[in-house]
C-alpha cells in the first residue's frame, strides 16, 4: 500500500497546500497592495515550479533542457506581453 504513496509526491502536495495557505494571508491579513502582490507572485510561481518539477516530471529525460528552455521562454514571452501591455495601458508611460 505504502508503495502507492511516494514520499516525493506527498511532500509536494503538502508543500502546495502550504503555499495556498500563505497566499490566503493576503485575504485574511490587511496587507498593503505592494506586499500582497509580492506574496502572491512568490507563492504562485513557487506553486507552478513545484507542479512542473514534482508532478510533471519535467526534468527526468534527455529532453530536460529543451523542455525547461521552452517553458521558461514561453513564460518570459507571457510576462513581457502582460507587463508590456500594463505599461502602455495602465501605468501611463
Amino acid at each position, binding site marked *: 500500500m505504502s508503495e*502507492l504513496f511516494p514520499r516525493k*509526491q506527498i511532500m509536494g502536495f503538502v508543500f502546495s*497546500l502550504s503555499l495556498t495557505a500563505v497566499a490566503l494571508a493576503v485575504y485574511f491579513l490587511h496587507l498593503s497592495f505592494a506586499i500582497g502582490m509580492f506574496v*502572491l507572485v512568490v507563492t504562485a510561481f513557487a506553486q*507552478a515550479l513545484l507542479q512542473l518539477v514534482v*508532478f510533471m516530471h519535467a526534468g527526468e529525460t534527455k529532453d530536460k533542457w529543451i523542455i525547461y528552455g521552452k517553458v521558461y521562454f514561453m513564460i518570459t514571452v507571457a510576462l513581457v506581453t502582460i507587463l508590456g501591455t500594463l505599461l502602455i495601458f495602465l501605468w501611463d508611460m
Partner: protein
Amino acid sequence: MKIDHSLPLEYSTKQNDQNIFGFWVFLAAEIMLFATLFTSYFTLEHRVGNGPSGSEIFEITPVLIETLVLLTSSFTIGLGIHAMRIGKQKAMLTFFAITLVLGLGFLGFEIDEFITYIHEGATLQTSAFTAILMMTLGTHGAHVTFGLFWGAGIVMQIKKRGLTPETTNKSFIFSLYWHFLDVVWIFIFSFIYLKGMM
C-alpha cells in the same frame, strides 16, 4: 517497433518520446493563450461601468473549495502516474477515477459560481470587467470539461487494453495536461480572486 526497457513504458518507443515532447510544445503555446487572457483581464479589470466590481462579487469560500479540489486532483493524478509506472493498473485506474470525480466537482462549483454571478447582475454583457472575467474563467473551465471527456476515454481504453506503451503514453500526456490546468488555476486564484479581494 523498438521498445527500450530501460525507460518507463510511456517513453519506451521513439514515437512515445516524440508525443510527450510534442505535448510540451502544445503546453508552451497554451501558456501564451492564457497569458493573453490575463493581459486583457488586467487591462480591463477596473472598467466596471454600472456593474459590480470583483470585490463585490468574489466570495472566498467557493473559490477556496475549487482550489483545494483542483490541487487534490493534481496530486491524485500524480499518484496515478506513479502507480502506472510500477505496473499497478487497478490502483492507477482508481486514482484516475478519483481525479475525474474531483474534476467534475470543481466544474460543479464553477458552474454554481457563474450562476451566482449572473443572479447578482454580472453577466457576459454587463461590463468589460465581467466579460473578460467570464472569458478567462470560462476558457479554463472549458479546458477542464474537455479534460474530463479525455480522461474518461483513457480510463476506458486502459480497462480494455491494459498498460501498453500506447495507453501509458496517452495517460502520461493527459497527466501533463491536468497539472497544467492546475497551474493555470493557481494563477487565476492568486491574480484574479485574491488580488481582487485584497
